[in-house]
């Protein structure tokens, strides 16, 4: 089974403010010694809230835009 796509975290930009951890509606993130990590990637819905809360741009939840195959 392939891992679900989750937001990427640049730990060198992270200032450990924990806003992403407290703001995640699915509690998918925890703060570790290294920085925030997705402990339960399967529960992440890719809502992008963590990205929006991150004050340093360390979290990215990029979107790819495509046409529907029938358009």
């Amino acid at each position, binding site marked *: 089974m392939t891992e679900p796509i989750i937001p*990427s975290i640049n730990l060198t930009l992270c200032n450990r403010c924990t806003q992403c951890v407290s703001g995640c509606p699915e509690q998918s993130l925890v703060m570790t010694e290294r920085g925030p990590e997705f402990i339960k990637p399967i529960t992440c819905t890719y809502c*992008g809230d963590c990205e929006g809360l991150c004050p340093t741009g360390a979290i990215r939840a990029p*979107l*790819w*835009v*495509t046409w*529907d195959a029938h358009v």
Partner: protein
Amino acid sequence: MQAEALNQIPIFSSLQADTRTAIARRAFTRNLPTGCTLLVEGLPAEYGYFVLSGELRALRMNQDGRVQILARFWTGDPINLISLLSQEHVNRATIETLTNSTLLVLSASDFNDLIHRHPDFSTLLLRQFAARLTKMTDLAADLSLYAVRARLARFLIELADLTPSHAGWTQDEIAAHIGTVRDVVGRLLRDFESADLIQRQRGQIVLLNRDELTRISKD
């Protein structure tokens, strides 16, 4: 660097052979992985770059650490030209890689030397500036002529028509590109989804109705 390598770079194709040789003699290439910081805003501008492959973004950070995305760079785009040519000589933005990237690097002194000795190199830079100024003028016109909803619809169509090799866009980047804020982008995407114009999947926005999105883009 081999002069022949420059022949394969489209933006240098208009240059005379001796200019390409002069660039090749001075330039070197640099490979950077995804997520790497190339330049830091406010530090002295020491190098100019041309993107040979990959994708990068320019951003600025305020005192609270809040980030604003300014621009993206793709193959052929110059980076840090304004910083090198301005009086202050400091990096005007932080630049980081969005994908694995290869850059052609010129030092500030070599850059200035090429400008003074090779008019076709100066012309190339002027064309790049003209293209960037045109883009900014178009953006200013868009901001005054069209509503945010129309600008977002048009940008989504543009992105969907691009080749899929481009790096994805965050909602902040989309907001910065169309001149609004993230919350508005999020709300409009939800509106579009409710109207069955798009479908949001994990990491993907699928456009469902070209005719209606095109109509909205002209409102």
